[in-house]
């Protein structure tokens, strides 16, 4: 099943009065179960592509379908619902809510989905187990190391079993040992649960683990490499 399907994808945005052509016609597909990375130097357009695939931004031209829906025709609210139902995000800076406990942070997407309280609890505990943080549900983010926080973020992304998890430089803030642990978890999830992962990165470690790497330069695909 095709999770992301982009055709002649164009994204321009204004910056200080001039127009930046971030993506200049990208045609790309990702299938369910992939563990793929978009790579390229800063300003290559890899993050822009990830944001478009994550329905966080609107495209300028071409077509893009995410989870089978053509995103160009969706309203802001419909986009929010699409993200809520089908997508998971992992950010470079973890972006946990500091006032909430680990349990509550992971529960947040389920709360938005309106899942019942007991079910939330069960699913959160399971997600915690999957990322190896059993027993830490009552902690606050600031009481944890960076790696632990990123694991919480992964649990938050996978707890609703999305069709696609988008990870924007997930290891950039971690040292290589911890980064490797994080990636191992994600690989395991991909293998065991079939969760689809799409990274944007320039970390060789991530590229090591990725089974497919799409190189982007100046808004265009340079190379699409499948290992």
């Amino acid at each position: 099943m095709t999770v992301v399907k982009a055709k002649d994808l164009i994204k321009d945005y204004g910056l200080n009065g001039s127009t930046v052509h971030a993506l200049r016609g990208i045609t790309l597909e990702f299938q369910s179960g992939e563990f793929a990375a978009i790579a390229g130097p800063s300003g290559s357009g890899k993050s822009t592509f990830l944001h478009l695939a994550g329905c966080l931004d609107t495209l300028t031209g071409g077509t893009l379908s995410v989870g089978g829906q053509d995103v160009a025709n969706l309203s802001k609210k419909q986009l929010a619902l699409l993200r809520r139902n089908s997508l998971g995000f992992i950010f470079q800076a973890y972006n946990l809510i500091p006032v909430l406990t680990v349990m509550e942070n992971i529960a947040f997407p389920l709360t938005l989905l309106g899942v019942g309280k007991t079910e939330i609890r069960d699913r959160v505990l399971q997600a915690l187990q999957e990322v190896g943080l059993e027993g830490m549900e009552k902690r606050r983010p600031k009481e944890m190391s960076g790696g632990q926080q990123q694991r919480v973020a992964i649990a938050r992304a996978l707890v609703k079993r999305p069709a696609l998890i988008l990870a924007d430089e997930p290891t950039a803030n971690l040292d290589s040992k911890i980064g490797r642990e994080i990636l191992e978890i994600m690989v395991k999830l991909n293998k065991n649960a079939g969760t689809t992962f799409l990274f944007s990165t320039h970390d060789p470690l991530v590229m090591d683990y990725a089974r497919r790497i799409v190189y982007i330069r100046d808004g265009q695909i340079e190379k699409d490499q499948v290992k």
Partner: protein
Amino acid sequence: MNFASLFELKRMAFRSLARHKAKTILTCAAIMVSVAVYIFMDSWIAGMERESRRNIINYELGAAKLQTKMYFAKKDEMPAYETFQDWETYRDILDESGYHAAPRYVFSGTLYSATGSAPILFNAVDPTAEKRMMAYTGYVELGRFIREGEFAVALGAMTAEKLKAGIPTRPAAPELEEILASELLSAADGDFIRSCYEASETKAAGENLAEGGELRFILKRNLPTGDFDRLWGLMDAIGRNDVRISTVIDLKALPDSIRWDKWVGELWPELTGWEQALLGKLYELDEEEQLYFFTGGGEDEKAAALEAMIRAGFSGAIRHTNQVIDVKVVGMVNSPDPANNFNVGYLPLDILQDEAGMMLEGQVTELLIRDKKMGAADMTSPLENPKTIRAALERGLARRSQTLPSELDVFFWMDYMEDYLGYEAMESGSSRIFSYLLFFLAFFGISNTMLLAILERTKEIGMMRALGMTTGQLYFTFMIEAGLLGILGAALGVLLGCLINIPMVKYGIDFSGMLEELGGNIGYRVAGNFRGAWKLSTIIGSIPVAAVISSLMAFFPIRGAAKKEITSSLRFE
């Protein structure tokens, strides 16, 4: 979005408040102060309003009045000529229907004492009826209330004091000396009078004297009743209580002749068509004398013509006769309603019937009406609706095969108090502006707090939106947060306001000195002690109101956050 998710978002709002303690406390304190001040001022105003209204009803007007429609139309001029007869019948009917009724003839005049004069509003009353329904009669502080058949007046205490009538309560040394110098007093009398006073506190008096001020004496308030009576008797004996009322008797009378220029200039243009026709019939022009002469007409026609002239405001139809009435001051009224204590006098109605009085011949200007079940602490009852009273009157008259004359009607106390009610509205309005200003500042604080909170959490907001939070949920979360801030502050404010209010309601603040300086006229009908009143609606209402206002104050900062691109929110540092 179901309830569970709302609940979860609310929890987040709570936690956020807890995280930003200093800011939360500061904002809460601002709201607390503004709410407390508002509650305090509102209680104060409510107390003054309630007391004023109660006083007006129980000390001044009764709940309603039977009066001629013409008097009511011209009430600001106090048209003493707008009288009516047969009030005894109306009183009896009202009595049968469960109402007290008290007749009054109200007129203005000047009261001359041995030392000065003052303009006075005189109420000629039936002392028995008055005692039954008007509470001021229980506040004759010194002396006694008037009795039927005596040429006597009970005066507002402040005015009596000013005119040096009755017993002086705070005489300056020379005033007391003057009294004691009277040849009509024996040495024993003099000693007795001295014994009734004590010098005002030595220290204060000394200071006053040093500044060239006067030594004052204060009447002892704990004397036996007999002593007060004796004191009053001595004041009587030296002539201190002999006063003269100078006034004008206004009579409505159809003029025998009207000068041509007045007829043309003053009367004719003010008349309606049929009134012109009527007067044209009753009067005839004598061209040589330049006068319109009355040529005769039926009683009904004469009455209608007079009515027309009064309605047209024609001065020639009202004759003024100077009158001087000698009376004795028998009492000093000092009631909780200052309107009774300044420039007001009460006379027996029955002494004013003939040439020695006001030529009333059974006429009164009004009949005050009050539900018998209502007491001095009560406002009005449903029975005191003017329509209900009128219906009762009409039923009673029908039983006697009579009808209510068309010129009479029943008016509610509020109809007479436009000035006061206007003042009340203005006063409460202006007092509230101050608290609104405080409110505004406090809630501006909320807006600012929320703006900072939202700015600080830009990245968090970006993440939550990325995770599928809709704009609606975003508004909900942060408005709840602001609302909680409002509720918390308001709850504390209510607590503080109520704590301040307890003594305000229980004891009040004494302003009687200031009141005296202002001649008793502060608009509110409250004498001396100003007390607050619990106003439950404000106390309960301020919390949700504060919550709603706070939430609304968060609206604009949230809108700013909602308009931001998610990607740029996420990049925000």
